[in-house]
């Protein structure tokens, strides 16, 4: 009986230990004597090495590997600093990251896009990077379109790292076979997709799901229709106008020549159809370059690209945004280490290697980067040089919704629920007219930013 009691007591103690261990907090606060305050990121500099935890959301293995290589090279050259890249998912960025940051389990550096920055800012943890950006700008000259979306309330809230822009990709072999020239305006585009659609092939593959992918392509049509201003810096919504309606009408018309399951498409599916030769055209960013030959079985010369066709009375351009990095730590030693790392990263000899983690998709956001040998000497970039020139040319005319008339700090409330693609769904699924759907969208957006 006594032995049984001891066994039970031991079991109780053990299970208590397990629970306490599971609930134990972050013990990264350094050596004894320091208070156990929750702190984001790597270890505080109690020893010789300053650790910087960097969260990025570039999940493809080639990008993860390249980022790690760059961090390793920096760490080797700076033994007193250790940059630790950790890949995360964009899906978790909006749901889990805020909780992690609030619990002191967030990173020191967090990759971002402009509308995401406005959301994380509301947590009150983002550090202004005015001095870092000023130094880097003096050395490397940031592109205005890359930097401006991160500047508001008198500060800069992220350091731009790479840009992305949409263009019209076309299969040169298919267009040549049909005797069609790449379209320069909407009328040509419409005629081309109709002619190119046959029993076994679609003229174009467009995303039409409720997703960021669809939002971005729709917005490109809105820009070229002349309707790039959705919301201004005072959060006044100006979505409902005839040029927006025209953009949605065009998109709905083109969807008739897109695969029937387009309303389940995001980024990957149009590219898969394009490479398989099932779609003659697609509208997307530069990720089409690196895998085209392998996935299509066609030579690089069959990959055509032009800037987005423009509507009558519209505007040249397409969606463009820079991906940046936010600083979430207020530790002075870590900030100094971060400054060193970003300085290293944007040096031309390093920056090109960083951009070519995904050649063609990641575009330079600095002038020195645009001219860097480390960027242009990449085999994929060299093979597709003329296509990359088109991408860079398109970047100069790029726009981003929520950042065309100052910076709308509530743009996250519009991009989060994917209202641009929800409006499209009202047309394609619920049978609304484009005018009614856009009016519906205006109402939803106004309610969202109230």
């Amino acid at each position: 009986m006594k032995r049984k009691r001891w066994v039970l007591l031991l079991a109780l103690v053990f299970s208590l230990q397990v629970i306490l261990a599971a609930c134990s907090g972050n013990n990264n606060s350094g050596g004894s004597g320091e208070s156990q305050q929750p702190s984001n990121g790597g270890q505080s500099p109690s020893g010789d090495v300053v650790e910087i935890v960097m969260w990025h959301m570039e999940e493809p293995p080639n990008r993860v590997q390249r980022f790690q290589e760059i961090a390793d090279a920096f760490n080797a050259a700076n033994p007193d600093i250790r940059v630790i890249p950790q890949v995360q998912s964009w899906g978790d960025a909006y749901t889990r990251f805020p909780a992690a940051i609030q619990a002191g389990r967030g990173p020191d550096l967090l990759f971002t896009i402009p509308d995401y920055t406005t959301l994380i800012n509301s947590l009150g943890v983002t550090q202004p990077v005015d001095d870092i950006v000023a130094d880097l700008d003096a050395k490397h000259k940031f592109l205005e379109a890359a930097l401006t979306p991160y500047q508001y309330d008198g500060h800069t809230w992220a350091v731009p790292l790479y840009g992305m822009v949409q263009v019209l990709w076309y299969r040169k072999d298919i267009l040549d076979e049909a005797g069609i020239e790449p379209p320069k305006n909407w009328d040509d585009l419409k005629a081309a997709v109709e002619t190119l659609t046959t029993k076994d092939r679609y003229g174009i593959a467009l995303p039409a799901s409720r997703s960021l992918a669809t939002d971005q392509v729709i917005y490109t049509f809105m820009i070229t229709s002349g309707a790039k201003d959705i919301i201004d810096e005072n959060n006044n919504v100006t979505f409902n106008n005839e040029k927006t309606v025209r953009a949605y009408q065009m998109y709905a018309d083109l969807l008739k020549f897109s695969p029937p399951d387009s309303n389940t498409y995001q980024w990957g599916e149009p590219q898969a159809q394009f490479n398989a030769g099932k779609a003659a055209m697609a509208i997307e960013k530069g990720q089409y370059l690196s895998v085209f030959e392998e996935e299509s079985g066609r030579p690089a010369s069959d990959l055509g690209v032009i800037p987005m066709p423009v509507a009558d009375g519209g505007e040249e351009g397409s969606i463009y945004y820079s991906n940046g990095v936010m600083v979430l730590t207020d530790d002075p030693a870590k900030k100094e280490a971060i400054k060193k790392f970003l300085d290293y990263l944007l040096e031309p000899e390093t920056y090109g290697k960083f951009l070519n983690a995904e050649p063609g998709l990641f575009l330079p956001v600095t002038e020195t980067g645009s001219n860097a040998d480390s960027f242009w000497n990449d085999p994929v970039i060299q093979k597709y040089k003329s296509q990359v020139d088109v991408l860079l040319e398109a970047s100069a005319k790029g726009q981003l919704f929520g950042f065309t008339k100052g910076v709308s700090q509530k743009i996250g409330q519009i991009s989060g629920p994917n209202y641009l693609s929800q409006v499209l769904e009202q047309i394609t699924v619920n049978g609304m007219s484009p005018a009614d759907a856009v009016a519906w969208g205006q109402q939803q957006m106004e309610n969202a930013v109230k």
Partner: protein
Amino acid sequence: MEALGKGKLFNKALPYLLVTPIVAWLVITIIVPLINVVKESFYSTGFVGTKGAFVGFENYQNTILSSTYWNAWGKSLVWVLGNAVLQSILAFGIALLLNRKTRFNEFARTWMIIPWVIPTIVVVIMWQWILNGSYGIFNHLLQTLHLIEQPVNLIGHSFWSLPMVIFINTWHWFPFMAVIILAGMSTIDEEIYEAAAIDGVNAWQKFWKITFPSLGKVTFALGLVGTLWSFNIFDTIYFLTQGGPAGKTTTIPVLIYQQAFESYRLGQASATSIVTALILIVYAYFFIKYLGPKDE
């Protein structure tokens, strides 16, 4: 004497000490978050991690007056009823077939549970591939048999999306129900069936007059727990359709998720959760009161 007293005290305290860890765990993982949700429902909290202003019952008012909320309830009712009917038919059918002692049945009882043990994400990816509008095997078969000319996009269809999601969820979960029913059937006395056979009772009468009533407690438990579990399913629907197209598969759990993490209205989502939970509690109360097995 003293040792005896201490021993008695220890014996009295021991049960409480032993359950303390699990109670602590329940408090930390259920009670504390629940209290937090109730608290948040009275605030205008937006993005997760931010602080909102106290708004009293405004969030509750918005929920109750929202047509979007009641539309989602409609979808949820179709979802629950569709799953209940389909799963019941399949589960009972399979259980009746497997309730005979044959070599095949012993083999089948093991392999029947495969759909249930496959992780939800794998089930979703598998069915997305099968039903894919461009290169799925389903469309390929229909086109080969000349039943359709153009591929059909069932998951993205405005009418068929919800029935398809119900079908996929049924395929995933019916083995669980079948196993429970089969276990219940094994407790029914064979002599009752023998006596019924002597009286000339047919197969349907045997099922309706003997089998089904004998499974009263099992079907009650499945009915209550099954409907509540089914109602709360989020992952299958969200992975397949994200609540689309155009909200056609937006059930209550999907709506709550969208409110909290896509529209950044945590306070509103909390109120929606509480209102929904209260309705489900009322449902469970009446279900137990009127459909619970009566002790004779």
